């Protein structure tokens, strides 16, 4: 059972917000967090549960997605990713926020939200996209698709997963 975790106890960076929770997540809350009088730009990405996916070449109706997380490591990875975004890749970023929901996420609702603010538009937009890519590559969260036709629910694997390409050895 996933407990609701608001943020990592080990992080003290006030410009970063990390959230892993079974509750519905709110874009407005993350945008309010990254909002700043110094910012000219706020970029966001929301991943929502679709009502269908292609599985083995066949489009299947999806009734819900459920997510599982290795919570302490996922939160630590999120903080690492936000820190790397800010210090290494997108230095003008002002604030960053990421929220990921675990447990069941019904069709149409958000599973992940990322928000970034910066003075000009490029860093906010690029940081948002980069954080999503890193999340898909390495954060220990797993998604299970539940189908409308009653067939067996399957654990998905991100093509971007960093140890999937060559396979582990």
């Amino acid at each position, binding site marked *: 059972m996933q407990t609701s975790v608001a943020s990592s106890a080990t992080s003290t960076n006030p410009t970063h917000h990390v959230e892993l929770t079974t509750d519905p997540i709110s874009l407005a809350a993350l945008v309010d967090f990254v909002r700043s009088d110094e910012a000219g730009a706020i970029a966001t990405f929301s*991943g929502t549960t679709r009502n269908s996916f292609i599985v083995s070449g066949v489009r299947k109706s999806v009734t819900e997605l459920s*997510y*599982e*997380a*290795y919570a*302490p*490591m*996922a939160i*630590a990875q999120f903080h690492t990713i936000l820190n790397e975004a800010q210090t290494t890749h997108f230095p003008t970023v002002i604030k960053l926020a990421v929220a*990921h929901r675990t447990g069941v996420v019904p069709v149409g609702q958000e*599973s*992940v939200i990322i928000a970034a603010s910066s003075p000009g538009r490029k860093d906010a937009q690029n940081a948002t996209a980069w954080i*999503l890519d890193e*999340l*898909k*590559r*390495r*954060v*220990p*969260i*797993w*998604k*299970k698709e539940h189908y409308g036709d009653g067939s067996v629910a399957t*654990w*998905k*694997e*991100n093509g971007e*997963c*960093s*140890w*999937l390409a060559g*396979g*582990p*050895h």
Partner: protein
Amino acid sequence: MAKNFQVLYFASARDATLAREETLSIPDDCHTLPVPQLIRNLTARHPGLQAVFKSAILAINNQYVDHAGRELDGGRMVEVKPGDEVAVIPPVSGG
């Protein structure tokens, strides 16, 4: 004195073991447990993990580690020590 460590199972690994976690011990005659041996032990306990390990890696104390025991981030070789938290990590699908 038992030299225990935790093993956590996620996603398809949990389906294979029907367990979220278990407590194992490092053999009496060793200080640490090499990762290849850990994987053999886990697969012996739970034969369903053999398929899982075709694509899963491990995390030891929140650091990803490959089947040889090499940390993905930095390349340091590690082995399992008493008190460690080990997790079986199938390919992720967050986002």
